[in-house]
């Protein structure tokens, strides 16, 4: 099984040189820590920053410099700052190459639900609906099952949707999967996890072809 850092490390391998990447809150944020040497990417923060740098030192903290998770951050050489309208213009206009975000549920046709649980406090979708509606490539970081063992990779989502048919790839604590026309195609399995374990934890259609290699971190 992978812990959240393992999931982030595996996703970091999907990041290619020269990409503009938007990272969601939670595990996706950790991906920035594991981008391989020699790969240069520009991180977009949807509150209006391209070229997000590391967290500031105590002396560098500036209340006017935050990321979309409201954490204090820094710029890098080559960074740019813009309005929320320009930021979502970049997103909607498909100028951002890769979006990595978390999910509560994903369906076998690539629908995603990650913003609302009926009956619980609704906090809002923030930028998630804009991101999933327009991203060229979406990778989801999530746990394969809920705490009580229910699959989160489903035939169809039960929670209110964030977007339709948009997820391309999923990295969970158990596996790496690709969303295809026929369902979730199993690409890799986490160390110590069998194909049977993954099958048991997946409610949606799981496509298993040939030997499934173990995830290499």
């Amino acid at each position, binding site marked *: 099984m992978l812990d959240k850092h393992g999931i982030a490390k595996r996703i970091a391998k999907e990041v290619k040189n020269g990409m503009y990447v938007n990272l969601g809150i939670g595990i996706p944020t950790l991906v920035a820590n594991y981008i391989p040497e020699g790969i240069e990417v520009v991180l977009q923060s949807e509150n209006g920053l391209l070229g997000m740098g590391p967290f500031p030192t105590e002396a560098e903290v500036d209340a006017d410099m935050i990321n979309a998770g409201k954490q204090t951050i820094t710029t890098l050489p080559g960074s740019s700052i813009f309005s929320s*309208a320009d930021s979502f213009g970049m997103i909607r206009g498909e100028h951002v190459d890769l979006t990595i975000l978390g999910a509560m549920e994903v369906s076998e046709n690539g629908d995603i639900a990650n913003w609302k649980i009926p009956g619980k406090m609704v*906090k809002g979708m923030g930028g998630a609906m804009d991101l999933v509606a327009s991203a060229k490539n979406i990778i989801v970081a999530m746990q394969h099952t809920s705490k009580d063992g229910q699959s989160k990779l489903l035939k169809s989502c039960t929670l209110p949707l964030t977007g339709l048919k948009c997820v391309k790839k999923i990295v969970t604590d158990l596996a790496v999967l690709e969303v295809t026309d026929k369902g979730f195609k199993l690409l890799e399995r986490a160390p110590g996890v069998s194909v049977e374990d993954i099958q048991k934890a997946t409610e949606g259609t799981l496509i298993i072809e040939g030997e499934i290699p173990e995830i290499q971190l």
Partner: protein
Amino acid sequence: MINKVVKDAAEACKGIEDGMTLMLGGFGLCGIPENSIQELLRLGVKNLTCISNNAGVDDFGIGLLLQQKQVKKMISSYVGENAEFERQLLTGELEVDLIPQGTLAERIRAGGAGIPAFYTPAGYGTEVGEGKEAKEFNGKMYLLEEWLKADFAIVKAWKGDTAGNLIYKGTARNFNPMMATAGKITIAEVEELVPAGELDPNMIHTPGIFVQRIFQGKAYEKRIEQRTVRTV
């Protein structure tokens, strides 16, 4: 040059009445018009509709207006940091219209730019799209979304001049530039107010035509929600 300067927040907020629709700039607590929010608290105007990306925290920003029950309706994209907000929402005291963040930004931009409606893909196939016109372009579905305007738009900038030109700093820019264009009356509070001519025209983010009243704010707290530092 037309002089847009008013003395303080009290003079700037003159004319704000019960039941009005206000836009308030900021993302989280970053780039919010602190002085004007204090004045709204002092005025005690009620039944406000507030258009703002977030709703502040319990004891700062728009959260303060919520504590005093001055807000009837919030139009926002994310409101998760506020327990009083949650309480009022669950008891039905407060109405909330949640809008995808990019759609919110564009609806405000459209309001200022004279575009009554536009198509966007965000929210198609979700409950956001319920009751909205949908149309296909190049094989993809889009929702028709309408402009947003306000009786007063209240924005915060870093520097401004007497002609109402504004420059923002860092990510405190966020929703402020679009909101500045979408108010019948736009109030700008700035950290530093200078005479017209001192700001480089090439560096202006919001041209003064959009701003009716400008003043130099004081005692900015600039509270940080998630102070995150590295040790090396």
